[in-house]
């Protein structure tokens, strides 16, 4: 932690502001050894904690979903009870590998002559039920609903007819008909064996004592992931996000131009609720980059665009929600316009805070926090990597300027985090009066490349409507000897829902930190 900044903060700010967090390395999964080359398919492309924070899922470019479970929660007894007994869990969250499964496979769309990558774009956890975990995963075109459950491995130990004998004995009428495939081509089963039970066959009142039910011995359990539903063929463009509704029965999927509404139980139809496709594609100026449901209000959803605007939609107003109910955008200050203004304004990710009051958005250079009751401008703006501004031209030339960084909020809504280049990520305090701005590196020593934050204390806020710019680093950051590596970018990260713990992806490695 930046001791100097933190100390001053403690003095100047009101006592309600919590001190900056002291981040420590917790765990790493899939750490690279020095010189090891990263396989493209292993690169993590999605991270998501479930609602309880007991599970974490990652998706990768190879179409796999890997699940992790928390180990520091005692297995016996419900977690909720434990928390009631002793609210402060002394230990930080620790996870272990739980299971993994192949969610998507590469496909080829023959109609459009398009390859469909297996890369997982988003993962969303669904309501846990009956001890099974449920999640939605999507690639560019197809969303899948997965159930992961402990299943008992069953072994039938006793039967009426010894299977080896039955098949050896050709004249015995067997429902298996001695052939390896007893089923008819249409899937129905041959009724032939049952002809032997002719109508004059009498069942004695006490039944046949010689018949017995198969005895099943089950000892081991194993985790099995099963695809329950496939929601396909509803998107002409690439799906960039999925989000489930608080009503527990619907979810949305958004592509570049449209947002569709699905019922979790119905996979063969969806309703188009937002369509920004112009009649003439040459008039296209803006695409949808992400969409998310409000965490509590089932009728509210937000989507953001490549032009830097966030639109709030009220599903109650109309079946087709092309008209937004609120529009959030920052009006550019005159005179600052450059060639890159529009490109870097594009919002790559939005997240609602847990209580739904705020929306966090990430564009190329900044994080912005919006109050959904205030559409005149963001409540606060945080510079993520201002030192890159002079280098936008380079970033444009190597296409890095189009990288889509994600952002996340802490469960208490007091802090926000997002990624940057050189495997760095930044954590900002967003409570009023906080000037917390930490830079961490996704490595075993997160503070190794600590960039000095300015010692200048943040101005205290007289009102929330004032826009604060904080965390801008001294222009000499590069002079510190930190060369910025544009190939190692930290795009995906997630904040634990109720503890200060962050999971972030550096290429194929998953790093976990706690404070």
């Amino acid at each position: 932690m930046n001791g100097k900044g933190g100390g001053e903060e403690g003095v100047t700010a009101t006592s309600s502001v919590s001190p900056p967090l002291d981040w420590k390395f917790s765990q790493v999964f899939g750490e690279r050894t020095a010189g090891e080359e990263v396989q493209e398919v292993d690169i993590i492309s999605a991270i998501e904690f479930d609602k309880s924070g007991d599970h974490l899922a990652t998706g990768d470019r190879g179409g796999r979903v890997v699940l992790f479970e928390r180990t520091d929660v005692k297995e016996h007894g419900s977690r909720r009870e434990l928390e009631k007994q002793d609210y402060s869990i002394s230990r930080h969250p620790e996870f272990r590998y739980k299971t993994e499964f192949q969610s998507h496979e590469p496909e080829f769309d023959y109609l459009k002559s398009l390859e469909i990558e297996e890369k997982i774009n988003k993962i969303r956890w669904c309501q846990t039920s009956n001890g099974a975990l449920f999640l939605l995963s999507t690639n560019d075109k197809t969303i899948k609903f997965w159930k992961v459950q402990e299943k008992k491995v069953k072994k039938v130990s006793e039967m009426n007819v010894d299977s080896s004998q039955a098949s050896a004995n050709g004249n015995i009428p067997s429902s298996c008909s001695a052939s390896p495939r007893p089923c008819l081509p249409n899937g129905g089963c041959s009724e032939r064996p049952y002809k032997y039970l002719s109508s004059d066959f009498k069942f004695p009142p006490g039944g046949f004592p010689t018949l017995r039910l198969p005895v099943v011995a089950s000892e081991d359990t194993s985790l099995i992931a099963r695809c329950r539903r496939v929601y396909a063929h509803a998107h002409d463009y690439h799906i960039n996000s999925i989000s489930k509704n608080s009503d527990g029965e619907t979810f949305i999927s958004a592509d570049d131009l449209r947002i569709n509404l699905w019922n979790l139980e119905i996979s063969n139809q969806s309703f188009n609720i937002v369509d920004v496709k112009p009649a003439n594609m040459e008039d296209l100026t803006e695409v949808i980059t992400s969409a998310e449901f409000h965490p509590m209000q089932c009728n509210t959803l937000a989507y953001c665009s490549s032009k830097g605007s966030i639109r709030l939609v009220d599903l109650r107003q109309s079946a087709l929600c092309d008209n937004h109910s609120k529009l959030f955008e920052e009006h550019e200050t005159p005179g600052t316009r450059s060639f890159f203004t529009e490109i870097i304004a594009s919002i790559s990710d939005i997240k609602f805070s847990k209580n739904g009051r705020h929306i966090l958005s990430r564009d190329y250079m900044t994080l912005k926090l919006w109050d959904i009751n205030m559409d005149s401008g963001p409540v606060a703006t945080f510079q993520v990597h201002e030192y890159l501004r002079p280098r936008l031209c380079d970033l444009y030339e190597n296409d890095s300027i189009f990288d889509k960084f994600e952002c996340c909020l802490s469960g208490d809504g007091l802090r926000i985090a997002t990624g940057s280049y050189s495997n760095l990520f930044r954590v900002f305090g967003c409570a009023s009066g906080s000037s917390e701005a930490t830079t961490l590196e996704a490595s075993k020593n997160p503070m190794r490349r600590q960039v000095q934050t300015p010692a200048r204390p943040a101005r205290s806020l007289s009102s929330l409507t004032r826009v604060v710019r904080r965390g801008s680093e001294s222009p000499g950051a590069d002079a510190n000897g930190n060369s910025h590596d544009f190939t190692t970018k930290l795009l995906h990260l997630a904040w634990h829902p109720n503890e200060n713990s962050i999971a972030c992806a550096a290429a194929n490695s998953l790093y976990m930190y706690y404070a």
Partner: protein
Amino acid sequence: MAMLDEPLYPIAILIDELKNEDIQLRLNSIRRLSTIARALGEERTRKELIPFLSENNDDDDEVLLAMAEELGVFIPYVGGVEFAHVLLPPLETLCSVEETCVRDKAVESLCRIGSQMKESDIVDWFVPLVKRLAAGEWFTARVSSCGLFHIAYPSSPDMLKAELRSIYGQLCQDDMPMVRRSAASNLGKFASTVEQSHLKTDVMSMFEDLTQDDQDSVRLLAVEGCAALGKLLEPQECVSHILPVIINFSQDKSWRVRYMVANQLYELSEAVGPETTRSDLVPAYVRLLRDNEAEVRIAAAGKVTKFCQILGPALAIQHILPCVKELSSDSSQHVRSALASVIMGMAPVLGKDATIEQLLPIFLSLLKDEFPDVRLNIISKLDQVNQVIGIDLLSQSLLPAIVELAEDRHWRVRLAIIEYIPLLASQLGVRFFDDKLGALCMQWLEDKVFSIRDAAANNLKRLAEEFGPEWAMQHIVPQVLDKMNNPHYLYRMTFLHAIALLSPVMGSDITYQRLLPVVINASKDRVPNIKFNVAKVLQSLLPIVDSSVVEKTIRPCLVELSEDPDVDVRYFAHQAIQSCDQLMISG
């Protein structure tokens, strides 16, 4: 296994396959669960099979669904109603699986079993089950419990009844919206078993909770409860408690809720009675007809006729008709289509004068709508208007529009019109038909699109059935036969097809005298396709004409075709000859 008697093998296998690897085999065994139960006997079914099934709850959904269904009719196999309770445990586990259709089936089966159980058994076994499910850890169990209260409640003693009511009240306020939705949609059923005194207090307060839910999806299910509860309450109570809720819902922020109101309004108006409907629901309905959201207008427009029937002509003309006029030029084609499908029914309600003055212009504008569905919906209900304004007026005003559609550029529209022609013919009568539509029917036979020609041939058959062979002899047969000279073989094939279809209707004499010669003649066609179709037609004529005709006329012709150079012609000729032979043997 040596102990098993030979006849028992099928059952033994069936039992073993309850645990087979192959899902189809397991499914097959579960579907024959009753056979297994009979083979085991009642006692072992109770003591072994049912516990075995209770364990078997992590199978595939299809198997679980089949099991839930089978168990619902299993009472005879466990030893009758007194042992019905042994069936509850496996169904209880099925009530908490995550697949909705399995749960629904399990609830259905539980209700079926519960409704046969003795009162004391309900209290001893069924009520505890409902309570367990309602307190279930997972929402799936609680969702299922909501559908069981109406079975548990009537048999319970007062203390238990009070408890059940309070549990249901808690379910209406559950954390999970899924549970609240289930509570909302089952409220009507549960309420119908609750005593009047508690209905007004407990049930109404639950209902109020649900109507004020944050989730649209819960509120809109509460709308359905309005109608169900309204019918249970005395009219006065209904007006004071349900009506304000309905009025509120009709102005809900959420279009989905308003849509539900529009869909349910007829049932709601039945619940509150005609007088209140006239005074209070009409303004609400008019608002819905003018709603901003097209989906709501669609639902509302679809109820126009039913609603007007309650209102009577005067109010309908005063309040509803202006809205109908607006809707007939609505910007959404789906709204116009919904309106078109019911608007004809308004004619009998409004009476002749109002229909002619007010409705007819609307009909005409809808008939000229650019959207084919709208036009078709009007045409399919013409009979209702006919009864009110009479055929002459109808023909003057509507017929030109129909004729226009019959020649529509889109073949699907023409096809749809053709399919309505027999209906129109029966509504309009022979004389009228001959004048106006007869020529069209012939014209379609020579349409450029095969589907139209095919439909036209079928149409002729249906017309012949409608107006009888004599009429067909005058108006169809000669025309069709004349056309066999058409230079294009595809058209000749259509006419041949028409002849084949007409002959069963026309009967053996006409077939022999008029149709058969033409067919025989066509066997000398230069196009092989015609010739093998002749063979097929002749085959179809065999049962219609006398056997002497078959031998004298048809067989020689077929024999000739069977020596044709074309392989297909020979094939079909042989087929037909074989049919001749069979006919001879059986005849």
